[in-house]
């Protein structure tokens, strides 16, 4: 009897757990059906496309794109989309197989196209650093790419797209200026970045920081460091006088916490590949960068 | 720790009343009634699958009866730890990392009790038991290194160390050469000296006739229980063994019976 109950429960569990949330296809009202991979791309696409597109974002807020596993609903979204905007540069490794398996007719647009990729620090990877959005000037290129793609698919609204992109570019330039002024508060010798994985390359290059090291020694969040790598990192932190280690949603924070407490520095949270919910501190890209810069400046001043 | 149920003085050491055991829908034992006196030496014979091991397991309290009663010195078996079951050698894991002394000491852990360690007196008992069976020079050998006869004697020593008053031996003479068998049978004399009651399951009807006080002929039912010449008649044997036969010499002449002996008798887990 007991045994039968267990078996029955085991068989029913998958049914009870499967969630049926997810985007429902919008009413066909002539708007371009657009899919963005993550919330950051989505934010920029939304600002350029505004009322003329029907936008869905694939990865919910808080997800790490590095090891994202697509679900059946995602395949459905991919199939009905007309344009798919991805960050590109090797960030969304799950995307190509998904496109192939669904055989979708959507156009794929990598918004980082045209940006010269920085090499990954200390590795002999052939791919470059995918975190292009850490420099707002790159996002200007994003906006241009998005406007071009939307215009090609929907020429009627070309003027709207161009106008939105131009307006956003102005905001981005303002952001850039603001960042420079904030960063100026950090003395030169403190401009040392230690992160959980190689996230801040473009930020460092643009605003005069050095990426001293990462916990995972990798551009991706999947790796686990060896004792030698951790020891080397701690040595560097001590030698160079690094003041904080920056962690994000990607990598297990316990390792960073231990390193921070062992070396006497702070573990500071930044957002790396996702925005937050509307009531959180980083609901838009501009807020995202402001939050991060404040965190960085606050820690290193 | 274990309430060692007090032995009632005038009761037979073992009293079985209308015992029946069913499992898996099969009848293993049916309406068995008998009793044993202290110090008796009884042989239990019968064909394979007759229920000899089952009987021993119910008597020792390992298996519950389906109906009927088992009393050890007036009380049910559950309260006693003075019943030793000596297993068939084929059922033992000889590769287990234990020495002869380890195995014998295992019999004593009922007396040692929870959360305590064997004392000097426990070790003395163990050594005495080993000496009694002649295994003391080999007490540090791993049990897999022993011969069949030595293995059997080790388990007998365990029963002694357990201070058992009733010892049930499941086919101890199987696969032993004649000298080893004789050695085991000689040890049974020692047990008798200590007033230990012994039941031995065996296939050897000749030995049953010559070395035991009484013989129980079993085939799911109790065919006959009594002195060998009353039990081991051709009529009884045919009733018990059915078509099997083995050659033995009994009082009224030679009777031929053959028996498919030995491996994997009662397979109760």
């Amino acid at each position, binding site marked *: 009897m*007991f*045994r039968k109950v*267990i*078996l029955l429960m*085991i068989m029913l569990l*998958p049914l009870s*757990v*499967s969630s049926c949330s997810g985007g429902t296809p919008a009413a066909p009202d002539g708007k371009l059906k657009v899919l963005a991979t993550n919330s950051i791309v989505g934010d920029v696409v939304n600002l350029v496309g505004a009322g003329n597109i029907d936008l869905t974002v694939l990865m*919910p*807020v*808080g*997800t*790490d794109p590095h090891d994202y*596993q697509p*679900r059946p609903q995602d395949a459905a979204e991919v199939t009905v989309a007309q344009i798919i905007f991805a960050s590109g540069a090797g960030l969304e490794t799950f995307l190509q197989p998904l496109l192939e398996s669904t055989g979708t007719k959507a156009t794929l647009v990598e918004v980082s196209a045209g940006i010269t990729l920085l090499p990954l620090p200390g590795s002999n990877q052939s791919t470059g650093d995918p975190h292009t959005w850490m420099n707002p000037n790159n996002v200007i290129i994003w906006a241009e790419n998005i406007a071009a793609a939307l215009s090609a698919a929907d020429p009627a609204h070309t003027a709207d797209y161009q106008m939105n992109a131009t307006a956003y570019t102005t905001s981005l330039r303002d952001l850039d200026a603001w960042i420079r002024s904030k960063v100026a508060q950090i003395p030169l010798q403190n401009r040392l970045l230690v992160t959980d994985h190689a996230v801040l390359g473009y930020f460092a290059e643009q605003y005069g920081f050095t990426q001293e090291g990462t916990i995972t020694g990798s551009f991706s*969040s*999947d790796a*686990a460091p*060896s*004792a*030698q790598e*951790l*020891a080397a990192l*701690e040595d560097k932190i001590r030698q160079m006088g690094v003041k904080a280690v920056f962690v994000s*949603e*990607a*990598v*297990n924070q*316990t*390792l960073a*916490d*231990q*390193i921070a*407490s*062992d070396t006497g520095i702070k573990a500071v949270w930044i957002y790396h590949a996702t925005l937050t919910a509307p009531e959180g501190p980083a609901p838009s890209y501009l807020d995202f960068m402001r939050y991060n810069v404040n965190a960085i400046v606050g820690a290193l001043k | 720790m*274990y309430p060692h149920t007090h032995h009632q003085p005038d009761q037979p050491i073992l009293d079985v009343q209308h015992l029946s055991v069913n499992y898996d829908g099969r009848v293993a034992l049916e309406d068995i009634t008998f009793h044993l006196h202290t110090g008796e030496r009884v042989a239990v014979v019968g064909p394979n699958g007759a229920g000899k091991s089952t009987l021993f*397991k119910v008597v*020792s*309290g*390992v298996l519950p009866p389906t109906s009927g009663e088992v009393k050890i010195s007036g009380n049910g078996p*559950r*309260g006693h*730890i003075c*019943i*030793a*079951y000596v*297993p068939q050698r084929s059922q033992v894991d000889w590769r*287990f*990392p*234990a*020495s002869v002394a*380890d195995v014998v000491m*295992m*019999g004593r*852990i*009922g007396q*040692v009790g929870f959360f305590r360690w*064997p004392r000097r007196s426990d070790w003395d008992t163990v050594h005495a038991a080993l000496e009694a069976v002649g295994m003391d020079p080999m007490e540090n050998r*791993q049990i897999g290194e022993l011969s069949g006869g030595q293995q059997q004697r080790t388990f007998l020593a*365990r029963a002694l160390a357990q201070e058992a008053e009733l010892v049930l031996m499941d086919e101890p003479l199987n696969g032993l050469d004649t000298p080893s068998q004789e050695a085991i049978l000689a040890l049974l004399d020692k047990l008798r000296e200590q007033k230990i009651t012994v039941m031995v399951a065996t296939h050897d009807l000749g030995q049953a006739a010559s070395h035991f006080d009484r013989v129980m002929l079993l085939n799911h039912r109790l065919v006959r229980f009594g002195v060998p010449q009353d039990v081991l008649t051709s009529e009884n044997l045919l009733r018990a063994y059915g078509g099997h036969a083995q050659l033995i010499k009994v009082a009224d002449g030679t009777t031929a019976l053959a028996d498919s002996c030995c491996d994997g008798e009662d397979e109760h887990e």
Partner: protein
Amino acid sequence: MNNLFNILLKPFSYDFMLRGLVASVIVGVVCAVVGVYVVLRGMAFFGDALAHAVLPGVALGYLIGGSSRDTLFWWALGAAVLMALAVGRISKHAQIREDTAIGIMFASMFALGIALISTVRSYSVDLSHFLFGNVLGVSTRDLVLTSVFGGVVLVTIFLFYKEFLVMSFDPVLAATLRLPSGLLNNILLVLMALTVSVAMQTVGVALMVAMLVTPAATASLLTRRLWHGMVVSAVIGAFSAVTGLYLSYYFNIVSGSAIVLTATTIFLLVFLFQPHRGLVWKKR
């Protein structure tokens, strides 16, 4: 000589190495001692299943209590104990064979865990680190938990040594001696669950069964009495932990794997070269 001294001491000038060392030695010893029973009673599959069955507990813990390592530890422990007792119960009603019962529980618990995790969609690495081990991120608090529960396991095994011995060797003797076999068996299962929960942080799910089985298997080749086996197994477990950490430091290998590979190498050496019985001698 001074140089050798330096080589041995240098890694431990880092606090995280020191904590990692203590944690992995404790885990190595506890797994090795419990592993003696695992090997003896043929429970390696069960041990592996137990490690995987922890996943839904951890997932639930993450959903309900957040991602602190403490929470995850307790949830993992709860799931492990539940699974251990459930398997014990199911295999008693033995119309299903024990390894089939284990297989069913194993797969379904693991699948349940993955299903739960997929509803969260942002679980990622907190859980994966818990499952793959993170010995270098051991905090002092983790160490306390590890020591306490590791100690509980070792003390319990010590206290019930002779009863577990009898139960493993001769269950019929256990019954004739009126040992509470059902209860004792459940205690052993719970000890295994405790061991699995404690060891997860060091070597993670995938490598756990190696720590349970390998030192004990090596010891079984070298010893002929149970408690000798436990001592030798514990020494091998501790040694593997220490050596594994040194290897991780000097050769840049992930620590959990280094520990397991050391234990396996020791096993192979013993298997091949043990006096009289080693494979190498037999071939001649």
